[in-house]
């Protein structure tokens, strides 16, 4: 998509905005990238009271330091994700563009561009709505871009909808250590991870588009954090052609994502993937992996961390065109050995790890199984526990069903 930020267009819009009487609107800025607005907006954020709506006019405003909001019950509203642009190109301080440490927060209809770190971070809060916000690094996907676009962490009752995230060097849209979350109608492109749900309980991820990322949609659990995660449904999304070379920072977990991953589950439990279009992802369309094949240090993992993906249920997805050119030597070798140079990996790849401590009579108990019942889609066990020595098709062995998860209903009328 093309974003309108030209000076002429902004000037026109500013002129139009000047005629409408908004609540709490600051001084009218000159276009483009007006630096004088920084103090105005900072003061509005400092003085905000619960119930306030801070309206940001149309225009492109530049900031050299982070913005932050610490007051509950505030709405920040722009005039559209292509019309109200907060540019942090000249940022000299602050680890994010806007940091929110507050509850009952809504932000909508604006863009945050070119932050040095994360674009929009919400660190702990309840009833969070992020809607029609664009986060973008305008120089295209680069390793030096900030890590996350939209980044609620340790939040509860969260709605992320109709946002656009472009160019993040970690995840475009990332929900971490949270609970009760809906992520819908968003578009994530040219990020390392398009959309990532990590260490989060009860998330519905639907009707999003993830394309041209390294990995499209990720559902992860990582060790050493305040909570693990479980119960995520990923449905009616399009995860298409996520083949961008991984430009994540070496050392970060996301840097281990093979380019060409449609949907990736790592170490998370009770994940349901259904009714999605997952196509043309060159490593493979769906990956189910454990932390033990992710190159993480065992020394650096809390002993009680459960790194095995369990209770995974995949069905009714429309998949194809994937697995033709997997990223990484092991998977490339596996593909050639098993399916020939012109062949392709199956639609679903499982690394093969299951928790030895939980086996009963040599089998994983039914509720903890990985179940793939997806028409003709094939499943390969990559045999990662044995160094990828004996990969095998396990399509029929994993054809089973699990109880379906309930839909997420957000509290307090969010997303209704």
């Amino acid at each position, binding site marked *: 998509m093309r974003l309108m930020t030209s000076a002429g267009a902004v000037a026109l819009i500013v002129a139009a905005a000047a005629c409408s009487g908004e609540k709490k609107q600051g001084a009218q800025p000159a276009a483009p990238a007006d630096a004088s607005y*920084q*103090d105005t907006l*900072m*003061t509005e*954020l*400092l003085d905000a009271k619960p119930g306030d709506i801070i309206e940001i006019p149309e225009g492109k405003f530049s900031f*050299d*330091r*982070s913005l*932050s*909001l*610490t007051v509950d019950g505030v709405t920040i509203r722009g005039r559209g994700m292509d019309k109200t642009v907060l540019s942090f190109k000249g*940022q*000299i*301080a*602050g*680890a*994010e563009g806007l*940091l929110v*440490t507050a509850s009952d927060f809504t932000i909508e209809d604006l863009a945050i561009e070119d*932050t*040095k*770190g*994360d674009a929009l971070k919400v*660190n*702990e809060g309840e009833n969070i709505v992020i809607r029609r916000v664009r986060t973008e690094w305008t120089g295209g996907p680069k*390793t*030096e871009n*900030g*890590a*996350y676009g939209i*980044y609620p*962490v*340790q939040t509860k009752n969260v709605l992320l909808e109709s946002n656009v995230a472009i160019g993040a*060097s*970690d995840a475009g849209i*990332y929900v*971490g*250590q949270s609970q009760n979350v809906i992520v819908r109608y968003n578009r994530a492109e040219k990020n390392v991870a398009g959309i990532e749900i990590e260490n989060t309980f009860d998330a519905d991820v639907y009707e999003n588009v993830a394309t041209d990322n390294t990995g499209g949609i990720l559902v992860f659990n*990582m*060790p*050493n*954090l*305040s909570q693990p995660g479980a119960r995520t449904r990923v449905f009616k999304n399009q995860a298409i052609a996520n083949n961008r070379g991984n430009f994540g*920072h*070496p*050392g*970060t*977990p996301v840097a281990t994502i093979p380019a060409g991953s449609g949907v990736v589950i790592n170490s998370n439990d009770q994940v349901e993937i259904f009714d999605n279009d997952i196509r043309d992802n060159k490593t493979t369309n769906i990956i189910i992996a454990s932390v033990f094949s992710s190159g*993480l*240090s*065992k*020394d*650096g*993992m*809390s002993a009680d961390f459960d790194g095995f993906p369990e209770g995974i249920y995949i069905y009714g997805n429309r998949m194809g065109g994937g697995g033709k050119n997997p990223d990484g030597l092991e998977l490339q070798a596996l593909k050639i050995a098993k399916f020939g140079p012109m062949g392709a990996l199956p639609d679903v790849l499982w690394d093969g790890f299951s928790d030895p401590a939980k086996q009963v009579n040599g089998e994983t108990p039914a509720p903890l199984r990985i179940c793939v019942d997806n028409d003709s889609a094939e499943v390969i066990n990559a045999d990662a526990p044995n160094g990828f020595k004996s990969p095998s098709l396990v399509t029929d062995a994993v054809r089973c069903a699990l109880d379906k998860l309930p839909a997420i209903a957000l509290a307090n009328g969010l997303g209704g």
Partner: protein
Amino acid sequence: MNTDQRKPGHSGAADRRNPESTGRQDGFRVRRVSRRPGMTEIFKQTLRIAFFTGAVFIVACARESAPQTPTFHEEGYPAKLSDWNLMSAANGVLTLSPGVVPYDLATPLFTDYALKLRTVTLPKGAAASYREYDAFDFPVGAIISKTFYYPQSSDEWAGDVSVGPEPTVAGGAMPLNGVRLVETRLLVHRAEGWVAIPYVWNEEQSDALLHRTGAAKPMTLHRADGREEAFAYVVPNQNQCAGCHATNNTTRKLAPIGLKARHLNKPSTFAEGVNQLDHWILSGMLTGAPSLPSPASGRGGGGEGSVSNLSPHPESADADSESAIPRNALWTDETESLDARARAYLDANCSHCHSDVGPADTSGLDLRPHVEFGPKFGACKTPVAAGGGSGGRPFDIVPGAPDQSIFVYRMQTTRPGDMMPELGRSTSHEEGVALIAEWIAAMDGGCD
């Protein structure tokens, strides 16, 4: 040591708690006050004031105006620092008002090599209550100030600053020749809680003005070896004060950070020959300390065990033990163990966020000094949301390999999205980085 030679082994708490029964106050310049009988409350107040009497009088005479009394504002954001009457800058001297008590920390937070003059002011007759691990419990009406300043490396102010010597506050006055005052941050304890109010010193250096949205000031740092480095000194905006001082990211109540027993338990810089906490207790500023600091802790050079004074589990701390008051090492004191110095540094610079409840609890890294060394303390820990902050390195700490450790990268870099701490510096604290690198290099192992 000062002229007050304490008898070896003489550490009777009763003596030290009752200033009238001992000659130990000789070094305090408070003798005449302590000889006045009765009047305990007045004594406590007066003692604090009298502590600075000498220099205050000298300065006051020079200025030919009476010393002011601090003014506590129960609400609002007064426009000028002088509205608080905590200090005044005139005739080349910064003078603290009576009752405004300077203090310092064993190992402080690094802020672009700025020197810091810290003060605490208590309401008349009130004292702070001792807490072993958290910041002391201060009464409503308390005012904490921190003034950031630099040695100026040229006569005319053009933004050139040096890595300077320690502050030269004596008797409540600090000479300002060759000094550039930058900002004074107040932490004010009001009925509704602590409030942070930032002031930026004016061009004339006569007063500091309210600056709630912060500022970026271009400066050039002249390092000790002559290297010059342009940087932007960043004054935080009022919300960013909470970025550090809201040490519990759930309640988000602001709190002092430096005013903890372990940071203050050191020889006083401002009252010669006495432990800083001793001085606070004696002058009635602090109550409820389980035992007075042992004489050794007032002398520095404790060698081993300064961190082991912190029990691994605060809950199980033995309040009756002789060493019940925790103590951090001075990070530059090479008579202390490397581990104690490194942990003190990480405590002062990181643990207000990297705790079990701080804003950085999202990272799973907890750098409070009593946390056992392991993944929680960074050992072989994979970063979670570091982004570029990983510096391409695999783990927070790779024992034995500082160049592979993310800690060292994040402390070295000045990229805003990558560096740690996230706020409060635009330059790298090379000496601090060297300490942490040395500490990691001395570890055995690696990561499996």
